[in-house]
């Protein structure tokens, strides 16, 4: 079965980045921030590439909603092996309102014929974990979220979902939507050949229809500072004092 796949990706700050913002700000300072493809989206991309390689060579398209800076995110996807890319271009910023994002994506995706839509389970910036199941619901397609691995069968996809206390195995009829978490799909490195080839692959830009966000960020704060701790001591000699502190001072034993 030839299965064409769309992978939706997002450009986010590197997880190793220290985020900074000024008093009363609602967004972080972009200066000095390195941007990457959201790590969960990389799992989705690898899942798509392997599915395509294992089957009869279905086409993999990476899609993102964002401004022109997101072109580099799409090029990274093409360099890793995707066949085509689509930028749904927005004026201004994509907000934290996942439903607004999902509507913009769904209005493009409903026109397309791909049978499998893959997302990262969440974006590495807003951590909302919304857009995949929302798109599925708007399109009226079944969805499995937080999936670590899957297998495609005749007209179905069988997914392993990570849930509290174990793995739930879910079968969906195609066309379907799946959101990926860390598991079987660690993204390959882009080869030099892949990076060169990416320059000749189709990259389409369309204007997105992004509704106004209805979940508004009023302010950002840093997480509360922890009170300064102390080094109890060095080596095994410090253990009795640590146990005493945990019992008598911290009250946690």
């Amino acid at each position, binding site marked *: 079965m030839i299965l064409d796949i769309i992978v939706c990706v997002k450009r986010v700050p590197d997880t190793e980045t220290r985020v900074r913002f000024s008093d009363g700000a609602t967004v972080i300072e972009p200066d000095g921030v390195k941007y990457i493809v959201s790590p969960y989206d990389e799992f989705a991309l690898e899942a798509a590439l392997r599915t395509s390689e294992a089957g009869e060579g279905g086409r993999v398209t990476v899609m993102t909603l964002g401004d022109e800076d997101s072109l580099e995110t799409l090029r990274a996807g093409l360099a890793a092996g995707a066949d085509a890319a689509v930028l749904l271009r927005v004026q201004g910023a994509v907000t934290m309102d996942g439903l607004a994002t999902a509507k913009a994506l769904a209005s493009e995706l409903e026109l397309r014929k791909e049978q499998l839509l893959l997302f990262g389970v969440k974006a590495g910036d807003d*951590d909302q974990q919304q857009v995949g199941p929302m798109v599925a619901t708007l399109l009226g397609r079944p969805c499995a979220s937080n999936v670590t691995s899957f297998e495609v069968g005749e007209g179905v996809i069988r997914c392993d979902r990570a849930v509290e206390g174990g793995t739930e195995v879910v079968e969906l009829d195609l066309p379907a939507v799946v959101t990926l978490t860390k598991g079987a799909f660690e993204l390959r490195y882009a080869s030099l050949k892949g990076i060169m080839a990416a320059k000749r692959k189709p990259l389409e830009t369309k204007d997105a229809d992004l509704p106004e966000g209805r979940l508004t960020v009023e302010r950002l704060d840093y997480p509360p500072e922890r009170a300064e701790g102390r080094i109890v001591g060095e080596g*095994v000699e410090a253990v009795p004092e640590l146990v005493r502190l945990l019992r008598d001072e911290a009250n946690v034993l």
Partner: protein
Amino acid sequence: MGDVLAIAEQRDGKIRPAANEVVTVAAAVAEGLGGTAHALLLGGAGVEENAGDLGNFGAEIVRVGEDPALEGNVPETHAAVIAEVVRSHGYSAVLFAATALGKDLAPRVAALVDAPLASDVTHLETDGGRLVGIRPIYGGKAMARVGFEASPAILSLRPNAFGTNGTRADGRIEPFTAAIPDGVRTRIVDFQVAQSRSVDVSEASAIVSGGRGMKGPENWSLLEDLQSALGPGAALGASRAVVDAGWRPHGEQVGQTGKTVAPKLYFAVGISGAIQHLAGMRTSRTIVAINKDPDAPIFAVADYGIVGDAFEVLPRLTAGIAALRAEG
């Protein structure tokens, strides 16, 4: 108006602890919104038996939808039924637990009723009759204060961030006939219980996490011994480095691309403290770090640190804690 609906999660007919917490929060915010708190419980035959308990946590009405199609928590089916209840009763807010199921259901319901959703909220209050939530972003490196420009507001609440208050009267149980959607294309075919003998890292009261300093997966028995000494509420955690190296399963990873945790007691053993790890565990109540390197960043967030060799410190620490617990 002003009524708040708490979605009560059950598995195999048993109400999950997170459900009581969601009802408790619903009762608190309903007061601020000038309404009352209701709970919604969906499941297969017999699910109604435990429904009254939800009243203890503040649900005045417990709506119970019992149907064979609602057994097994197929999200496509549950979302359709929840959305129908939300539409027909005009709730101001709908609260889910941010569990695997809740985080899957909430976005579907938000899409069905066309309302904004704030996920994994850790603090919720009413301010002059409007809801204001606080939620961690960037894996916990920043906290966003969020408001809602449409009704109902949909939220999922991080388990254990709020606590419960279970001292009220029984709720009034109102059974209803759930409108089960046709043509559901999702089938749950199996559930494989995790090999690990412990609670999930996201639900643990104590966590023993290991990093590169443990030198190899064969040395994890030292961490398991400490975990056992801490009792049945303790779980094992891991840094991203050791998960990426294949030493431990991803389910144990603590940090920005793993789980965000807030146990009473967190041990970081042989973990240097990369920023994305710190973001995932810094809200733990008490943090203990054991590391050879006195300059490791983990010591900056630890309440108590021991500079030393984990292979020497761990057995002594395990023995010390075991002896203490044996004393009772």
